[in-house]
């Protein structure tokens, strides 16, 4: 399960994009993990994520934080998305001090994440996972500008055509880029979609794309 890994974009686009996951381990600390996961989520929420969710319940753009907290069970994996390095530094400092006990994972630009860990006095990354890109029939993929948005949902629930429809809606004055970004966020149940980055990417797309369908 690598749903926060394969986000596409250049350094400039990804430098303010962090997904922080809390994950209990089957056979190790999963049993009785619900209170730890709730504590992890409460701490994350204090630090101002732009999105937060649990795969089975939804995210803060299609339900409430209280609903997400209420439906945490032993084994629930939760995600919090941040648009700001400083917020992640303060979050990791607090997690280091309060130690919820479940595994904590941060997806982001590798050297920026290591810098955050140094600042939070966490030492070196424990285990790293790199994306080696997309192989095979890559001619079947949409434009890179569209991929930057759709790959923010690792379960591939953001449709290429939805991006096209929303760009068209913005151009027609039916939605603002912020509203369009929130519409995309609703599709990504887990809460991995960075709505701040999404808004920025949609703004960047507007002069480049003319959408005719839908």
């Amino acid at each position, binding site marked *: 399960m690598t749903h926060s890994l394969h986000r596409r974009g250049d350094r400039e686009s990804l430098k303010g994009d962090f997904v922080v996951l809390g994950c209990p381990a089957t056979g190790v600390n999963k049993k009785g993990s619900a209170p730890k996961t709730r504590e992890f989520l409460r701490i994350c929420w204090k630090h101002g994520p732009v999105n937060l969710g649990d795969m089975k319940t939804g995210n803060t753009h299609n339900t409430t934080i209280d609903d997400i907290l209420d439906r945490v069970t032993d084994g629930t994996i939760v995600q919090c998305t941040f648009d700001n390095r400083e917020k992640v530094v303060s979050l990791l400092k607090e997690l280091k001090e309060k130690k919820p006990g479940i595994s904590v994972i941060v997806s982001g630009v590798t050297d920026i994440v290591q810098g955050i860990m140094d600042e939070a006095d966490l030492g070196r990354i*424990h*285990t790293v996972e790199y994306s080696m890109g997309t192989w095979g029939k890559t001619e079947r*993929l949409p434009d890179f500008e569209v991929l930057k948005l759709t790959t923010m949902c690792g379960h591939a629930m953001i449709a290429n055509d939805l991006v096209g429809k929303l760009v068209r809606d913005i151009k027609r004055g039916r939605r603002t880029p912020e509203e369009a970004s929130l519409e995309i966020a609703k599709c990504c149940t887990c809460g991995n979609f960075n709505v701040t980055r999404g808004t920025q990417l949609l703004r960047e797309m507007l002069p480049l794309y003319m959408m005719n369908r839908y």
Partner: protein
Amino acid sequence: MKVDENKCIGCKRCFPYCPLGRIQILHRHPTAPGRVYIEIDQDKCTDCGMCFRANVCAVDALYQPTEPWPREVRAVLSNPLIEYKGSQVPGRGTEEMKTNDVTGRFLPGEVGIGIELGRPGVATSFRDVEVVAMALTPLGYEMAEENPVTHFMSDRKTGKLREDVLDERATSAIIEGKCKLENLAEVLEAIKKAAEKVDTVFSVEIISKVPPKGEIPIIPILERLGYEYSINSKNNMGLGEPVFKFPE
């Protein structure tokens, strides 16, 4: 995912929410003159449920029937809300490196490799999944026990999938496992060759325990062989408890 032809008014609001693109067909209603309805191509649909969850159908025409085996594997791998009981993790994969700080799943000298077929937004047939899986097993690639794709294999030693799932499709299906560091170059070469044989895309991911000091062991191998890896990554913070004692 199916559409009730007696409720659907053919408004097409659900179309742009389908991650697989235009897989719907418009039909004239057989008994109501002038009325059209949508039929979803059942061969292409992976039962991910996104159109239903988008909550855009004004007449509640979309519904997901309970699908029998083997079609049920589509939703298991494609709908993130469904938990595969074998992995005990919602979604289509495992905990992999996320819990390596407490499980020790990936030890020094081992490399985790995941191949996520169908992603992003193309979908995959299980025949293509089998092509990649069978390319890896002769090279000492050990399939992850808890992974759903591993459970759909009739022979885990060869990577052969069960005959009855081969005609099924998924939005994405992940082959997860690990190999020894010394086999990494061969395994990557096999994946590269398999990429030429499949009719889909796949994302490749690579996992390594980071040593307390010095270079991450996979980096010089990737650089020597000319493989690119992304500037962004997924990073375990080592905050889980109880801490797994890794050998030096």
